[in-house]
C-alpha cells in the first residue's frame, strides 16, 4: 500500500468513526512513515524518494 493510499483510507475511516480530530495527526504520521520507509537502513529504501528528516519534527511524538 502506498503512503497516499494509506493516508486516504485512514482519514476516511477516522471520519467514519467520528474522529475528525485525527486528520492532522494522521497527516503528520504519514510524513513520519515516509521518512521511516526512506531510511537508508531499510531493505527497500533504495526504491524510495529521499525524505527530509525534519519532516518527522511535527510527528505526534512518542
Amino acid at each position, binding site marked *: 500500500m502506498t503512503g497516499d493510499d494509506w493516508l486516504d483510507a485512514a482519514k476516511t475511516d477516522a471520519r467514519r468513526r467520528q474522529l475528525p480530530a485525527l486528520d492532522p495527526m494522521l497527516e503528520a504520521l504519514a510524513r513520519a512513515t515516509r521518512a521511516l520507509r526512506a531510511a537508508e537502513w531499510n531493505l527497500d529504501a533504495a526504491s524510495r524518494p529521499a525524505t527530509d528528516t525534519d519532516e518527522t519534527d*511535527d510527528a505526534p511524538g512518542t
Partner: protein
Amino acid sequence: MPLVPDTPLHGMAAAIQSGDVSVQEVVEAALHRIETLDAGLNAFTLVMDDSARLAASHADTEIAAGRYRGPLHGIPISIKDLIDVAGVPTTAASQVTDRSPAGVDAPVVARLRDAGAILIGKCNLHEFAFGTTGEDSAFGPTRHPLDADRSPGGSSSGSAVSVAAGMVTASVGTDTGGSIRIPAAACGLVGLKPTFGELPTDGIVPLGPSLDHVGPLTRCVADARLMFTAMGGASLSAGSGQTTPLTRRLGCPRPYFLDKLDDGVRAGFEQALERLRDAAWTVSTSPIRHASDTATVCLHLLLPEAASVHASSLDRQGEAYTQGVRLRLEMGRYVLAEDYARAQRGRAVLTQTVDDALGDHDALVLPSLAIPAPRLGTDTVDIDGRPVSVRNVTLRLTQLFNATGHPAVSIPCGLTTGGLPVGLQLVGRRSRTAQLLDVAQACEQSLRFSSATC
C-alpha cells in the same frame, strides 16, 4: 527534626539505624509535608497515611529488637499510580480504569517493602504514562515545585515532585520514552532507567511493552543505587555500593543530540562538560549514526504497541480518555504491520550504533531534556526562533535508549539563568546498569552540583 525535606536516603538511613530518629517521626514529617504542600502541587493521587503509620510503628519495633533490614528500612517512598500496590486501586490517572484494589504488590513494590521501605502514597502521572508533561490526568495537572505555572515534566510527574518537594525520600516511576529522566531533569533530581528487562514490569500497566522500564527517582546517585538494588531483589549489604575502575572517558554524541537545545540548557550542559574536563574527564565527540531516525522509529514502535494494549478500552469507553491521549492511542491503530516491522529493523540498527558510539568510553554524555520545565498549557516552545512541539522536543534526547534498551540516568548539572534545573544524561552499556551508576556517581562528585548533600 529536619529529616524529610533535604536529607538524602542514605543520610536518613544512618539516623534511623543509630536511633537518632524514629521511623514514626520520619513518617509524620513526610505526611506533614504532604499536608502542607500537596494542595498546590497535586503530586499524589492517594496518601496512604493509616497504612504508613502502621508500617512505621512496626519498623520501629523491628529496629528496636535488633532486626534492622538495611538502608531502606523506615524510608518513606512514593509509587507512581501506574504500579500495583496491594489493597489500593491502580488508577493510571485515568477515568478508564476501574477503582477496584490491586490484589498484590507489583514485584518491585514487594521488594521495596521487603527491604523495609514505607509506602506513603501513590503519585499523579500523565494518563496511562502517555505524555511528557503530567497535564492530562484525571486528577488534574501536577505543578512544578519551583514555579506552579510550569510542568514538572512527565509522565512520572507526581513521583518527581514528591521527591523534589521533600514529601518523600525516593519514588518509583516508569519510563517508556523518557518518563523518569524527563521529570528528573526538569526537577533537579536523579532519574534512572535501567537496562531493558533488568527490573520486572509485572504489575505495572503497560504502555509499550517492548519499551517500558521501571526505575527510581532520588535526590542523588547513591540513593538511586540503593533503590535500584532493592528493586532488583539483590541484597543491600556490602557490595551494592562498590565502585569499579573507570577510564574517565565520556563520548558526546554530537550532532543531533545537541542540535536543538534551549539556550539556557545548552549553556548549562556545556558548563557541566567544562567542569568534568576540569576534573580530569576526557569528553570526546562520539556520533550515533542514524540518530536522526530516532523519532520516526520510536513512533512506529510505540503507537501500535500502545494501541494494542488499549484497543478494547478504546472501543468500549473511548470518550473516558483525555482527548490528547485518546487521539494518540487511536492513531496507533492505523500504523501498518509492515511499518512496525521496518521500525523493528531500525531499532536493531540503532542498538548497534549506540553500542558503536559507546566504544571504549565509560558512558555517553548528553543533555537529558532539551528545554527547561515547560509552562503548563503550552504546546510549543521557541528554540532558535522556531516553534517546536513540546511533546517532541521533550522526548528527543531520551527515547532512543528506550528503543535500544541501554541504561540511562539523568543527574542534575546546573540551573538556567531563570533558575530552572538542567539535567545531564549518561548512557551505559546494556546489562551494565551498576557500572553506569559508578560513572554517574563519579560525575556527580566532579560536577559538585546536587539537590542534596550526598
